């Protein structure tokens, strides 16, 4: 556990997949998340973000912000050692894509306890294979921003409104429920 002075904030380390980073960037809170957590990503998540950044829509702009933060060193890219495990996951579970598989293997290899993803379809299969890694939504970081007084509840609600726009109706339902839980945080 890192030492902490009185002024230092305890920072967790999480591994992020593309969907979680895009959500946080769409919600305009990604940079603020770095105040409370180091975010590590695998190479494939960087590749996916670059592809999405080519589009001129909300997600494309969010991906551009993610790429900027990676270029500035705010988000670190790391390599997975056991590449064969990625292929096993992707071929064994149709709902786990390459970025998610790499993110999970990276978290396991580096003993990072949390993987954040907003791909609801892949969560059940990720959890089956997660072992010591906890699978959480990007809302984990959003809730912490509220609890640690970095953003207000209203700002978190606005972020969730932006994140849920353009998502499937199933995902939007979860984000609407998240707004209720965020409201109850304080």
């Amino acid at each position, binding site marked *: 556990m890192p030492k902490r002075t009185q002024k230092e904030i305890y920072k967790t380390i999480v591994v992020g997949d593309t969907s979680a980073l895009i959500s946080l960037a769409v919600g305009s809170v990604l940079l603020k998340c770095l105040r409370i957590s180091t975010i590590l990503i695998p190479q494939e998540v960087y590749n996916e973000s670059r592809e999405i950044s080519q589009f001129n829509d909300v997600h494309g702009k969010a991906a551009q912000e993610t790429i900027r933060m990676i270029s500035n060193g705010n988000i670190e890219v790391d390599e997975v050692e056991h590449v064969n495990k990625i292929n096993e996951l992707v071929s064994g579970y149709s709902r786990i894509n390459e970025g998610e598989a790499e993110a999970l293997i990276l978290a396991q290899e580096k003993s990072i306890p949390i993987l954040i993803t907003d791909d609801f379809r892949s969560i*059940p299969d990720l959890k089956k294979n997660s072992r010591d890694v906890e699978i959480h*939504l990007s809302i984990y*970081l959003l809730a912490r921003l509220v*609890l*640690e007084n970095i953003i207000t509840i209203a700002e978190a609600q606005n972020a969730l409104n932006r994140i849920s726009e353009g998502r499937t*109706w199933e995902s939007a*339902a979860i984000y*609407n429920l998240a707004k209720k839980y965020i409201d109850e*945080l304080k």
Partner: protein
Amino acid sequence: MSLEQISMRIDSRLLRELDQIAESEFKRRSDVVRDALVAHVKHEIEIRQIKEMVTKQFLEGKLSLDDFARIVSFDIAQQIKVGKETLKESIERAKKDSKRNL
């Protein structure tokens, strides 16, 4: 409301059947296509609204998983169930980790 134009390719057999329908209803080909499209989109919107309503009921604990799955399909019901559980876990973990900074 402005009108936009679209073009499409369809199978020649389907086109002949479309023309037969248009003739029997004294309509233009494009009117038959437009009416079918409007009906389909309206139906899809209604289905989506029903699914959103039952999802809200399920998430509020007012509908069982079985009944929910009958309406939205087992796969989607499971996805939303796991999504709800993961959301709760994420909030609890956030509360736990935030205590270190408070």
